[in-house]
């Protein structure tokens, strides 16, 4: 009985599908092949959509929806002394709602919903947000603290298009290698402990669960296998990507679990299920605060990292609060607090006067030469970022595909 009805429903579904198809797909031209890349991609890099920019600010709207990396918008609930949201709320009257995200991809997807007014975008998200029309150009004249931002962070390829800024630089840092000091000996100094030497800690290695992690493998190969000719970990041709994928597949054998939720990583290190892997300074800080015997280091051979920009959603209804937030978050006080909490170099020069002694030195804040050594997360695109023109490079979609295959 039920099944006959079920079969009938199946037919009904098929009919409905056809109907819905008729209404939904207006531009359908029955393209028989899938390889019809969007126009934007063909025009070299991309074309930023033409969006208006604010000329002047008015009264604040009373609310602000913030999409942030964990640790970027603390309101004192994690640690009473760590709070730069409450002063902002008191000063501007903008009630702040915070949503954290674990990967840049998540940020891009969430921004597409149009529900968020500001976002802290890393380099692998910012360009996609600009190209997708999800964030709008930012009038830096309306942000009084912008003048104090280090000039080497302004007008870079991940936060500006044709000289137009799309946000306020916030800070930068490197992905670190964290290990359990009791389980891992000798203390590692290099990424080899999670790649070629990973079998020593089989089942207890962890890695960041995002396609962008492929760049970490590429960076390792760049240092250990010069024959591959990798010049830039985000510019990989097919052979180089294949080599990185092979390395990660070998690593996969020893990986206990991948993390993208920072709380899950802390928990795994606390219970001993993970003993070595990539991390952020803030995670190491939180774990150490819980008395977990971990240490986080920046390996000598360098690392991947991030350079973040606060951007304003193009569909925002709280534009004045958004500008107020951008101004607040790069103010010396807030920028210093975020930088110390998250463990990154601040973007505002004056923030270094407020951080604890030696902090800015240890993060090499303002040291342009050092900043150039970190391989900031960037979206891989067809045009090789290292300047090669004789090959096409693999795109982020290829990386996403490869990442699924690596995890198997």
């Amino acid at each position, binding site marked *: 009985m039920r099944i006959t009805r079920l079969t009938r429903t199946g037919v*009904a*579904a098929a009919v409905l599908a056809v109907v*819905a198809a008729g209404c939904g797909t207006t*531009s359908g031209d029955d393209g028989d092949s899938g390889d*019809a890349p969007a126009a934007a991609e063909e025009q070299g890099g991309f074309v930023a959509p033409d969006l208006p920019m604010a000329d002047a600010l008015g009264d604040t709207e009373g609310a602000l929806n913030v999409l942030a990396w964990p640790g970027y918008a603390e309101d004192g609930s994690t640690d009473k002394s760590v709070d730069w949201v409450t002063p902002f709320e008191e000063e501007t009257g903008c009630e702040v709602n915070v949503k954290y995200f674990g990967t840049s991809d998540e940020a891009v997807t969430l921004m597409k919903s149009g529900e968020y007014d500001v976002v802290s975008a890393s380099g692998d998200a910012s360009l996609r947000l600009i190209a*997708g029309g999800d964030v709008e150009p930012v009038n830096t004249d309306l942000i009084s603290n912008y003048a104090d931002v280090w000039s080497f962070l302004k007008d870079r390829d991940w936060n500006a298009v044709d000289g137009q800024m799309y946000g306020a630089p916030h800070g930068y840092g490197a992905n670190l290698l964290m290990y359990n000091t009791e389980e891992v000996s000798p203390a590692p100094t290099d990424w080899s402990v999670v790649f070629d030497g990973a079998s020593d800690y089989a089942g207890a290695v962890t890695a960041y669960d995002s396609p962008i992690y492929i760049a970490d493998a590429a960076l390792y190969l760049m240092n250990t296998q010069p024959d591959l000719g990798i010049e830039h970990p985000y510019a990989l041709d097919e052979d180089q990507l294949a080599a990185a994928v092979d390395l990660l597949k070998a690593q996969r054998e020893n*990986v206990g679990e991948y993390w993208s939720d920072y709380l899950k990583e802390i928990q795994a290190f606390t219970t*001993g*299920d993970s003993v070595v892997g990539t991390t952020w300074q803030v995670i190491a800080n939180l774990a150490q605060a819980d008395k977990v015997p971990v240490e986080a280091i920046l390996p000598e051979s360098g690392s991947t990292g991030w350079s973040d920009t606060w951007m304003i959603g193009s569909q925002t209804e709280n534009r004045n609060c958004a500008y107020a937030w951008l101004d607040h978050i790069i103010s010396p006080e807030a920028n210093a607090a975020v930088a110390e909490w998250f463990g990154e170099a601040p973007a505002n020069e004056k923030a270094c006067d407020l951080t604890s002694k030696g902090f800015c030195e240890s993060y090499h804040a303002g040291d342009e030469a050092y900043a150039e050594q970190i391989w900031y997360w960037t979206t891989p695109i067809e045009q090789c970022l290292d300047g090669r023109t004789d090959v096409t490079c693999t795109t*982020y979609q290829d990386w996403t595909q490869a990442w699924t295959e690596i995890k198997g």
Partner: protein
Amino acid sequence: MLWLGVAYLGALAALFVTSLWTVDGFTGVITREWTLQNFRDLATIEVYRSITFRTVLTAVAVTVIDIVIAFPIALYMAKVASPRLQRILVIAVLTPLWASYLVKAYAWRGMLSETGPVSWLARPFGLDSPGYGLAATVITLSYLWLPYMILPMYAGLERLPNSLLEASADLGAATGMTMRRIVLPVLFPAAVAGSIFTFSLTLGDYIAVKIVGGANQMLGNVVYDNFLTGNNMPFAAAVSTIPVVIMLFYLAAVRRTGALENL
């Protein structure tokens, strides 16, 4: 009825339509052009076959384990326990359903961790916790869906008159024979009904795998990753048609056994 058609089938139809689109890899904007590329990728790229296989295998394992565990419990509840104990047991089986799925999954994460109770219990016997992985996923999901298997089995067995069991014994049938000829025909449709829950719920699960599955991924994770991190909704839609198709086959197979008519 109309409401059901629009809300439920409409969503399924939209899913199917979406799976025929593609997405611009850089901007993440959906390109509304017909293409079978997503399905071609699914068919030709080997990793999706192994993920599908792993998912189905997990679903089968969870279903079988649940049947094996649920049968004695349901039999005891329906035929042995006093009416008072029966009520208490039904409540006991239902209570875990009040707790959040996430709480239970995270509880198993704690249980199965390197320093957790499971490894503490197993160590004296020279064993160890299975750690996070496929085994942990199967254990967690079996636990989560167990009530969905016990309840239909209990309901089925309760309708079996005691007189039939007695008559069988009077006619000289051994316990095995009674089980096979009297209990099993009643139990089978009940187990099938329960298996539809356990099988389909496992097929679509992605959270338990994320929590206790270690580095493994199932179909649900591929959908989740493509939707949320890969921002490739059309491909996610194409992947989600796999469990739908598997379930249709499963239901068709169930129908052939005639189990549903006897419910």
